[in-house]
């Protein structure tokens, strides 16, 4: 067993553990924190897959940005600390469907192997990505900027406090 293998197992376990905690914890904040572990572990997984740049982005965006805005979201809204369970039957049914889904997929991906791999992926990873983004994928890239702009404006107009509301408070 190579060190890479061990690292993978450790990271995978962390990621899954974070997920399991997300399901089982009752405190909302704890759930988010548990998920941070998962996100970071996934970043580690990316590293093992020679995707350093993606790993960094993962840490920045998921473990950083998204988790934090989610925490903000939790703080901004009043919520029960202890989450009540949903009706049991519903949970079981959902679990059953997802379990089946898992089993069906599992059976076919467990021996998926193309026997090929790209060994040079980590060389100049970031640079290559940059070049690709600005040449081959320039159109979706530019489109993404529009998308982010939309998200920005949208979030502002939706979440902004009304002026009249403020006046009313005064």
């Amino acid at each position, binding site marked *: 067993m190579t060190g*890479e293998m061990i690292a993978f197992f450790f990271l995978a376990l962390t990621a899954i553990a974070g997920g399991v905690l997300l399901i089982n914890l009752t405190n909302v904040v704890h759930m988010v924190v548990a998920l941070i572990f998962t996100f970071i572990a996934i970043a580690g997984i990316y590293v093992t897959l020679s995707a350093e740049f993606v790993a960094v982005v993962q840490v920045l965006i998921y473990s950083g940005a998204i988790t934090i805005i989610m925490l903000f979201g939790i703080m901004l809204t009043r919520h029960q600390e202890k989450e009540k369970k949903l009706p049991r039957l519903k949970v079981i049914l959902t679990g059953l469907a997802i379990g089946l889904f898992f089993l069906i997929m599992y059976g076919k991906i467990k021996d998926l192997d193309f026997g090929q791999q790209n060994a040079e992926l980590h060389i100049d990873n970031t640079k290559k990505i940059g070049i690709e983004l600005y040449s081959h994928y320039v159109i979706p890239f530019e489109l993404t900027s529009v998308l982010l702009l939309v998200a920005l404006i949208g979030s502002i107009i939706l979440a902004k406090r009304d002026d009249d509301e403020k006046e009313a408070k005064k």
Partner: protein
Amino acid sequence: MSSIPLAAYLMLALILFCIGLFGALTKRNAVIVLISIELMLNAVNINLVAFAKYSINPGLTGQIFSLFTITVAAAEAAVGLAILIALYRNRQTVNVDEMDTMKR
């Protein structure tokens, strides 16, 4: 050379995807629902990145795809949260199962 098989990554992704899905469908807190969706997208990203390395035609494409996914996911999370806050202002609740004024 790495000895970790492609299947291991895919399996991990599948597990996380299922957990995310389960969370999205059973958690009552809207924020958790949103974050569970993020987890699902993350699982997809693992797939993409793994396929970028192990595939018939390995290359950077998968990683780039995953970058777009991450961006989009972030935007989506932001918008989702904004909507949630607007909703919270009016309804004073973030419980998903209480959002059922429209049915039939």
